[in-house]
């Protein structure tokens, strides 16, 4: 059992247990905080996969921006009566069955073939973190310049859309 495999096990357990807590917890604020742990676990797995820039972006974007957005939404839509509504146990069983069937199919059929095709990793784990950001930046500005420009357009559209949808409806009765 190598050290890298132990670390992988720790981060994988953190990620999956937090994800289960997100979907099973009735308190929405707790679900949001467990989601933060899930994102941190995935970020740690990114570091193990030599994606250092993505590790930083995962924490900045997901934990720093998206989770703050979720917290805002949770506190703006606090249900006054706090009736913790969940589905009937039959529906939950059907949902669990559907996702279990999916997981068994993927894990049984797809993953062994894919990982056999991938083969062994060529880069050792304790390589010094070098040049991932630089190479990624170069790739974004040379080969992937078109998606790079388009994503800024998409973000602008999403920004305008969120503002327009979310603003208060200040309807004035006086004619203008």
């Amino acid at each position, binding site marked *: 059992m190598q050290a*890298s*495999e132990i670390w*992988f096990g720790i981060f994988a357990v953190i*990620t999956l247990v937090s994800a289960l807590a*997100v*979907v099973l917890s009735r308190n929405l604020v707790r*679900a949001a905080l467990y*989601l933060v742990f*899930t994102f941190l676990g*995935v970020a740690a*797995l990114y570091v*193990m*996969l*030599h*994606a250092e820039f*993505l590790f930083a972006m995962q924490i900045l*974007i*997901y934990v720093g*921006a*998206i989770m703050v957005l*979720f917290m*805002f*939404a949770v506190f*703006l*839509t606090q*249900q006054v009566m706090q009736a913790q509504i*969940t*589905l009937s146990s039959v*529906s939950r069983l059907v*949902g*669990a069955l*559907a*996702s279990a069937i999916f*997981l068994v199919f*993927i*894990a049984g059929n797809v*993953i062994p073939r*894919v*990982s056999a095709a*991938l083969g*062994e*990793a*060529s880069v*050792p*784990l304790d390589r010094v973190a070098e040049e*991932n950001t630089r*190479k*990624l930046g170069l*790739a974004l500005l040379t080969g992937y310049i078109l*998606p790079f420009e388009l*994503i800024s357009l*998409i*973000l602008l*559209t*999403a*920004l305008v*859309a*969120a503002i327009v*949808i*979310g603003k208060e409806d200040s309807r004035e009765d006086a004619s203008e």
Partner: protein
Amino acid sequence: MPPSSWYLYVAAALFSIGLFGVLTRRNAIAILMSVELMLNAANLNLVTMSAYRDVLSGQVFALFVMALAAAEAAVGLAIVINVYRTVRHIDADRFNIMRW
């Protein structure tokens, strides 16, 4: 380094947990949280392929998925807040005005 299948198993499990959340939860914000779980699982898959093939395109793809997830979360939550202002609840099972 752990074999690639371990990372893929974690991504598949994360995806199916998110799928269970989308199918099961009634609160619209909780559904959006489960969608974020599924997006993270897909990203983990992409980064795993990128690492075990020693190319960068998987990480670039994952970066764009991350940006799109942020945009989608913003718009989705704006919609949820707007719905809450209109009908004072966000129970997805009761969004049935357009059902005949």
